[in-house]
C-alpha cells in the first residue's frame, strides 16, 4: 500500500495498528488518518474565513469581526453552526442528482489534493512519485463540481457562472501547469518530498533566479484565477450574476462550496511554497539542530503558507475585477507565451548549469 512507507508517521501508524490488530487495525488506521484530515479541513477552512474577513477589514480601515470570543475568533464557528441549523432548500425544477453531487465533488477534489501536501518531514498521507501532477489533475475535478452546480440549479445566472468558471479554470490550468513544469525541471522529480529534498541547500526561487521569478509570478496569477478569487471571481460576479454557480444553494450546501474555495487557496499556497520556497525546510538551516524536527518543519511550512495566503488576500482587496475578454487576453496572449518561453529559458539554464547554489 502507499501508506506503509516507514519514514512517514501515518505509515508508521498503519503498520503498528495492522501488526497489533490485523486487517481491522489497518482499516482503523485509515479511518484515523481520514479523521485527522477532515478535522484539518474544517479547522483550516474556518480559520481562513476568519482571517480573510479580518484582513479585508484592515485593508479597508475597518475592524472586522471582533465581538464573538477573543478578537472575534469564535465568529466563524458561530457562522458554521448557523449554517448547519439552516434548512436546505432548492428550486423545484433543479436536476437533483447533479445539484446534490456538485458540492461533494468540490470538497472531494480539495480533500484529495490536501492528502499529497507535505506538512512536514513524514507528515504526508500520500507521498506518490507524481505528487505535483496529481494535485493539478485532481484539482480539475473541482471544476466539474462547479459546472454540475451551475447546470443542476436550472437557473441562467448559475449556468453562466458555472460555464465561466469552467472556461477560466481550464485556461489558467495551462499556465499554472507550465509554471510547475518550469520548477520541476530544477528538481528533476514530481514527488513532493523529492522536490523539497532538492531544495535542502538552496530554495528554487534563488537557485532558478530570473526564470523562477517569472514562473512564480505566473503561478501566483494562475493560482489566484484557479481558486476563483477576486480579481478573477467572474464565476460568482456579484454585479452581473447574483452569486453565480452557488446562487441556489443554502445552508451546508453553500458552506461546502465556501469552505472548499478557501481550502483551494490553502492548497495553491502550499504547492507554491513547496515549489518555490522550500516547503517545510527552515530558512538558512536555522532550526536543523533543534529537537522536535517534524514540529519545526510544520511551523516553517505554515509560516510560509501564511505569507503566501496573505499576498493572495492582498491581491483580492487591491485589484479590480477583470472583464471576461481581458481575462482570456491575459491568459492566452500574455501568460501562456511567457510561460512557454520561460520553460525554454529554464531548460537552457539547467542544461548549462547557470544556476545559483550554495
Amino acid at each position, binding site marked *: 500500500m502507499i501508506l506503509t512507507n516507514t519514514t512517514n508517521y501515518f505509515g508508521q501508524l498503519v503498520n503498528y495498528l495492522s501488526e497489533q490488530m490485523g486487517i481491522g487495525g489497518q482499516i482503523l488506521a485509515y479511518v484515523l488518518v481520514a479523521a485527522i484530515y477532515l478535522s484539518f479541513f474544517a479547522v483550516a477552512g474556518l480559520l481562513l474565513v476568519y482571517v480573510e474577513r479580518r484582513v479585508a477589514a*484592515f*485593508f479597508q*480601515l475597518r*475592524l472586522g469581526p471582533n465581538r464573538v470570543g477573543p478578537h472575534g475568533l469564535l465568529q466563524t464557528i458561530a457562522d458554521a453552526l448557523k449554517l448547519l441549523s439552516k434548512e436546505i432548500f432548492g428550486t423545484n425544477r433543479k436536476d437533483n442528482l447533479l445539484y446534490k453531487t456538485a458540492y461533494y465533488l468540490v470538497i472531494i477534489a480539495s480533500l484529495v489534493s490536501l492528502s499529497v501536501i507535505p506538512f512536514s518531514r513524514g507528515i504526508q498521507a500520500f507521498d506518490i512519485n507524481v505528487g505535483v501532477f496529481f494535485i493539478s489533475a485532481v484539482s480539475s475535478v473541482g471544476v466539474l463540481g462547479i459546472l454540475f452546480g451551475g447546470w443542476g440549479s436550472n437557473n441562467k445566472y448559475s449556468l453562466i457562472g458555472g460555464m465561466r468558471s469552467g472556461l477560466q479554470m481550464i485556461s489558467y490550468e495551462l499556465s499554472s501547469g507550465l509554471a510547475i513544469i518550469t520548477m520541476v525541471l530544477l528538481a528533476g522529480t514530481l514527488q513532493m518530498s523529492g522536490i523539497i529534498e532538492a531544495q535542502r541547500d538552496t530554495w528554487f526561487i534563488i537557485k532558478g533566479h530570473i526564470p523562477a521569478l517569472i514562473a512564480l509570478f505566473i503561478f501566483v496569477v494562475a493560482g489566484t484565477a484557479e481558486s476563483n478569487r477576486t480579481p478573477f471571481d467572474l464565476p460568482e460576479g456579484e454585479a452581473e450574476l447574483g452569486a453565480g454557480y452557488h446562487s441556489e444553494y443554502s445552508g451546508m450546501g453553500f458552506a461546502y462550496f465556501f469552505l472548499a474555495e478557501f481550502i483551494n487557496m490553502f492548497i495553491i499556497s502550499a504547492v507554491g511554497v513547496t515549489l518555490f520556497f522550500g516547503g517545510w525546510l527552515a530558512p538558512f538551516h536555522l532550526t536543523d539542530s533543534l529537537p522536535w524536527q517534524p514540529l519545526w518543519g510544520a511551523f516553517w511550512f505554515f509560516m510560509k503558507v501564511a505569507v503566501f495566503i496573505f499576498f493572495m488576500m*492582498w*491581491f483580492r482587496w487591491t*485589484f479590480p475585477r477583470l472583464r471576461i475578454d481581458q481575462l482570456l487576453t491575459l491568459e492566452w496572449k500574455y501568460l501562456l507565451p511567457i510561460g512557454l518561453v520561460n520553460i525554454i529559458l529554464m531548460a537552457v539554464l539547467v542544461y548549462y548549469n547557470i544556476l545559483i547554489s550554495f
Partner: protein
Amino acid sequence: MSYLGDVIGGIKTLMKGMKVTGSYFFPNVINKKYIITRQYPDEPAIVMERFKGEVVMWHNENNEHRCTGCQACEIACPNGSIEIIWNRVLNEETGKKVKQIDKHIYHLGMCTMCNLCIQACPTNAIMWSTNFHNSTYDRSKLTKVLNKPGSKLMAGVEE
C-alpha cells in the same frame, strides 16, 4: 517591443495599487494619516458643542434652577413636548403669592429639536445637552422630568 512594455507597465501599476492598500494595512509602519474613523463604542465619541441632543435644565450645586414657571416654552413648543405643572406658593418675605414649578415635563419622544423653547426662555433656564444615548426599551422612559426633585428657584432670577 510594446508587448514587453505592456507587461512591465502592468506589473508597475499593480505594484502601485498594492502600495496604496498596503499603506492602509500597515498604517503604523507607513503613516497614520489615513485613519479618520473613530471606533465609537470602544473610544469616546466626539460630539460638537452645538449638537442638539436633548433639552436639560441647568442646576447649580445648591440644587437651584432658573425656571420661573412662566410657560413661555410650553407655548412656544409646536408639538406639545413640554408640559409644566405649577402652583402658587406664598413668599414669606414679601407676602405675595408667586408662581413655582412643580414638574417641568419634557417628552423626548415627541421633540423635534427645533430650538424654539430655548429661544423663548426669558431666564435661560433650559439648554441643549450633547448627550445622544437616548434609546430605551420602553417608550415611557422618554418622558423626563427636567427639574430635579427638591429643587427650587435660584434667588435673584425673578426681578
